[in-house]
């Protein structure tokens, strides 16, 4: 029983990362109506940024968030201006189709950039406090994992606050609901799209930093994380950051519970069945209005 509860705890802890990885993707998908399948590669770049600053300058990984966030925000601005801006001008079906294609090419390119810069080895960040574990009622709570959950939650709250309380955030939500009406009332669509894309990219970068602390970063992790994020987006539906976070927790717990119940090698299959089930019975997602 304890070991099962322990798995649930680990599931919640990793679920926070799933939620954050999905938040950026969900934002971009919901607002620009484009699907960036290179989202996981942006996450990977965030992880490598932290790895680099930790190894080269000894910077604490959680402090490096102050670098990852703006760096990935800037990269998002560049990617939007250089690639996705052209897609966002098309009608909705073409948007999705072309963004998926461009994202696919981009993910391959970034994957190989990472191999060139950091080799194909797995890289991780190990700090003095990496081994610290809190014990509570027979359950283990590794310090770094708890910290990633807290930071992921804070990041989600920040996004939620920005989207619901600031003018730029409200413009993003209005555009997501109806871009034509948004343009009519004077919202600058291009700027709003750019902000949303850059925010999504920065969120991916933050998630990458947190991944590098708890797991490892390698050029291969991009597609894996894109996939987790996609499953969460389908699970949670679009339009709510806290909903996306909850979707991430559900996926995390489901995965860990199933690795105990039916065996770790089949853990990923459970995600697929979750995905198919939601598609069949509730395609708008569990938490959508």
């Amino acid at each position: 029983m304890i070991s099962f509860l322990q798995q649930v705890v680990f599931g919640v802890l990793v679920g926070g990362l799933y939620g954050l990885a999905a938040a950026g993707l969900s934002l971009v998908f919901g607002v620009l109506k484009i699907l960036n399948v290179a989202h996981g590669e942006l996450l990977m770049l965030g992880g490598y940024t932290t790895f680099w600053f930790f190894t080269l300058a000894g910077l604490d990984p959680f402090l490096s968030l102050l670098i990852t966030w703006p760096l990935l925000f800037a990269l998002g601005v560049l990617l939007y201006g250089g690639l996705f801006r052209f897609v966002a001008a098309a009608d909705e079906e073409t948007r999705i189709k072309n963004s998926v294609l461009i994202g696919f090419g981009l993910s391959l390119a970034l994957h190989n950039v990472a191999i060139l810069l950091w080799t194909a080895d797995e890289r991780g960040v190990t700090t003095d406090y990496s081994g610290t574990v809190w014990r509570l009622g027979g359950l283990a709570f590794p310090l770094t994992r708890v910290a990633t959950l807290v930071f992921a939650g804070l990041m989600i709250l920040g996004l939620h606050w920005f989207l619901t309380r600031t003018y730029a955030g409200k413009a993003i939500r209005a555009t997501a609901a109806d871009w034509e009406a948004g343009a009519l009332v004077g919202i600058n669509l291009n700027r709003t799209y750019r902000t949303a894309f850059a925010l999504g990219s920065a969120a991916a970068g933050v998630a990458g930093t947190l991944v590098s602390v708890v797991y490892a970063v390698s050029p291969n992790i991009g597609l894996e994380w894109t996939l987790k994020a996609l499953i969460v987006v389908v699970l949670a539906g679009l339009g709510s950051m806290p909903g996306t976070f909850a979707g991430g927790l559900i996926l995390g717990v489901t995965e860990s519970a199933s690795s105990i119940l039916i065996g770790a090698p089949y853990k990923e299959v459970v995600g697929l069945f979750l995905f198919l089930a939601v598609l069949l019975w509730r395609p708008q997602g569990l938490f959508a209005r």
Partner: protein
Amino acid sequence: MMGLPRGPRRMGLAGVVALVAFAAAPLVTTRGDLLNTLVVLFISVALAQSWNVLGGLAGQVNLGHAAFFGAGALTARLLWFAQMPIALAVAAGSLAAIALGLVIGLPAFRLRGAYFAIGTLGLAEILRITVGNILPVISALPAEYVRHYSIVPRYFVALGLAALSVVVAAVLAYSKVSYGFGAIREDEDAAAASGVGPLAHKLLAMAASTGLAGLAGGVFAYYHASYYYAHPFSPLWTFDALLMTFIGGVGTVAGPVLGAAFYVLLKEVLVVRLVETHLLIFGALFVLVVLTLPGGLLEALHKLARLRKPRPAA
């Protein structure tokens, strides 16, 4: 072929000539490297064409094509090693791929937008990870099979596969059903309103596409002496299919063939010189083609031909 317009009829004729020429190749040469490159080319043609049938003709973007290639390879390989005749094993692989395609297609095709792309991407990646977890080993030919290994039967099987894929694409592109594909590709609501069933058309294209991809996987399993079981599920196969189709000309019959030839040749050159960066170049090239040359090489050729011909005075 007689009922076809002039362009496709000429293409068909060229195809038959090419088929005869390729069929004669093993009689003329015994150079292993040449025959091996051609086998790779034939499998590539089938892979690209199988993606094109669904993605180009019917307009449904499949980001997990490797799942169907991999399912065909895995099924065929395991059954073949279990003493089943190779033809039956490959056919079973194709059926497995079709079954998998319907499992993801039935729910995803009911919905619009990105669900099919997401679903297929997820399917392929999850299969790759799971197969890698359960069978993390290299699949090598048993000694008895190695003793009988010869490139020539593989060559003819792969040639037949490539020809079949082109014929399937041509039949779907020039028969009555092609109008249905065009209608759902351009405007699904209008298609449904005029009595074209989107779901039935998408599923037909899906079955043809995944069936061909499964066959290609089966031939891959028949051809290769050793590879990791999870290797045919790698997203690189999906990328290959997409890249070849788009470089050649998506939604046409000749495009994927042209794209495959271009890609296989370029890869032969690039892999030797730029081991590290060739995939980076291909990734960038692909993005460039999607953004700036949506008709691929075929469109570029047509434009060139039109430039050379003087325009008739108006």
